[in-house]
């Protein structure tokens, strides 16, 4: 399957949610995946605790690495339309290893073909929770491909409600609270009356009502620029922070 066919499998023409699928990983599949075998089988996760697809509900899967793809495929079996929102760039010596996700997307494309997801299936947006947290401390000579999500990466609350969606479930691992970048998205939805619930994949639930707190620079025109500049930090530190340089320049 070519990288383009792979993208079309995940974001078929004529499906409304396909518009939001991020193409950057697919566009570079030949560079990062190159036909490799995924580290994890494509359908191993139990999702019985997640409600079956309903037109009134959307999901956001925000778990680390390739597990998010596997979870997306499992949810596809429950009637959801997985929508990949991976937006990490590709370069030599990258800070974030996108390859496992790319391989899983490639393998998953074949699986998706056979699932017969309904055209009006509700979306399950897929994110890599490790988008800002590389396994190893990033060195100064690395290619910085950490990324964050912005409200513009998702449909607006108005669009969701127009499609009948009034509830969003957030799936994370080890927590059920959103990260700071996602809080900018979810708070907009919450303010528009969309009901938010969070669940921890590690615990298999239970669902807990989310009350998203106001993140810094919420709705500020400068947020996007400031975030990319690395001037804002969340409580765990390092939100968009520049990769530190070695003590001496030159050399």
């Amino acid at each position, binding site marked *: 399957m070519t990288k383009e066919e792979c993208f079309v499998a995940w974001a078929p023409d004529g499906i409304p949610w396909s518009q939001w699928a991020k193409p950057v990983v697919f*566009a570079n599949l030949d560079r990062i995946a190159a036909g490799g075998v995924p580290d994890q089988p494509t359908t191993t996760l139990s999702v019985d605790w997640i409600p079956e697809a309903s037109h009134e509900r959307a999901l956001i899967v925000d778990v680390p690495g390739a597990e998010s793809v596997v979870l997306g495929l499992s949810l596809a079996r429950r009637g959801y339309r997985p929508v990949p929102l991976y937006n990490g760039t590709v370069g*030599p*010596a990258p800070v974030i290893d996108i390859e496992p996700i790319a391989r899983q997307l490639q393998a998953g494309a074949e699986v998706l073909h056979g699932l017969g997801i309904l055209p009006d299936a509700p979306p399950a947006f897929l994110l890599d929770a490790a988008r800002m947290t590389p396994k190893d401390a990033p060195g100064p*000579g690395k*290619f910085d491909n950490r990324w964050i999500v912005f409200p513009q990466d998702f449909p607006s609350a108005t669009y969701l409600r127009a499609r009948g969606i009034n509830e969003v479930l957030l799936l994370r691992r080890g927590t059920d609270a959103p990260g700071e970048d996602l809080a900018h998205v979810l708070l907009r939805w919450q303010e528009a009356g969309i009901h938010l619930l969070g669940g921890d994949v590690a615990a298999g639930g239970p669902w807990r009502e989310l009350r998203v707190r106001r993140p810094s620079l919420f709705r500020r025109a400068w947020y996007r620029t400031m975030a990319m500049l690395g001037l804002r930090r969340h409580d765990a530190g390092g939100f968009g922070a520049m990769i530190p*340089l070695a003590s001496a320049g030159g050399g």
Partner: protein
Amino acid sequence: MIAPWLSANPLLPADFAQVRRRAVFDCCKWDPQVEDTASLAALPLVLRQEAWAELVLLAEKLARETLAAEEELLGRLDLHGRLGLPRQAARALASANRGRRSPGVARLIRFDFHHTSEGWRISEANTDVPGGLNEASGFTQLVAQHYPETCTVGDPAGTYAQSLRDALGAGARVALVHATAYSDDHQMMAYLARRLDVAGIHAHLVSPAHVRWRSGHAYLATDWSREPMAGLVRFFPAEWLPNLPAACGWTGFFHGSQTPISNPATAVLTQSKRFPLVWDMLGTSLPMWQALLPETCDPRHCAWRSEEWLVKPALGRVGDGVGFRDTMTVREWERIARDVERHPRCWVAQRRFEATPFTTPCGPCYPCIGVYTVDTRVVGAYGRMARRPLVDWRAQDIAVLVAGENHDLDAVGRQVGRQER
């Protein structure tokens, strides 16, 4: 007044889906959707030939004036404080003035034109790091294939790549310097790298923190390369550079480099929206700028809260932070207004103009035609179209085409039709 454009039929949905996919995979268009808006328009903006000819004339005059003013302004340290620049950038400019400024190559500028009830006007010039090359070249060519009565207005990415090749030589190594983590910026650099490759230049996609200088010569300090570079292409705004750690030597983009840069960070002098505030103090004559840019004031010297004005941050990008009272909520406007009152030196007020709407099947839209120049020669255009008279992140990219030589479309009064397949 006759509109400078012709109406055009949108692409058929199946054709547009194909164009969108080709834009993604062939032209590195990796942000085809922004919130609820498809970022690519399904129809082109087809200019009348005489309209494009006029834009070429105006843009080339603007480019010559801009470069002359920038040259003079670099030596006028007394005026730098009026431009709303970060303190560290101002210090770097002062050093550049002491005769060690970094050399430029293939100077790229984009002038943003709007058609108004009084003819063409510009809202601003992107003299520092103009974007949109992948849409202006790649996407535009894809759309043009469906409108055989038209032609493109140029291939800005290809011509820019060729200019770099001509200046630096075939086989040269060039660093494309940008915020690597930001896919919106990375996509344009990735596309330019492809075009440079075709032109015979080896491109390296790196961040500004990866560039160091040894005896004035730029080289890469990365885990994958430590090669010297023959040239640098900067797509990282000059005013962001001071946010980098000092150890990475970001001042080399302003001064001290012997490696040519496109564009040197001294471009920030004319990038500032407060540039018009120093015109009267320059010896350089700027008649085209004065004719085309709406009246521009320090907010302290005009009634900027009235509906006749809008306010812009001195160093804003992509419409970020523009205060346009009747297109935003009261809360958004008041937030901006508070900032203008607290920091008027970082803002500028500009008199509003009445933009000519472009009729589309979705209703009236307001086009902005960003005309690129390379070394003062027009090389193409980047079209955007907004539902409201403010071009910001909600705007769509629209292919700018020009009616073909043999099609007197106005005389026959028919629409430009797409090629049915």
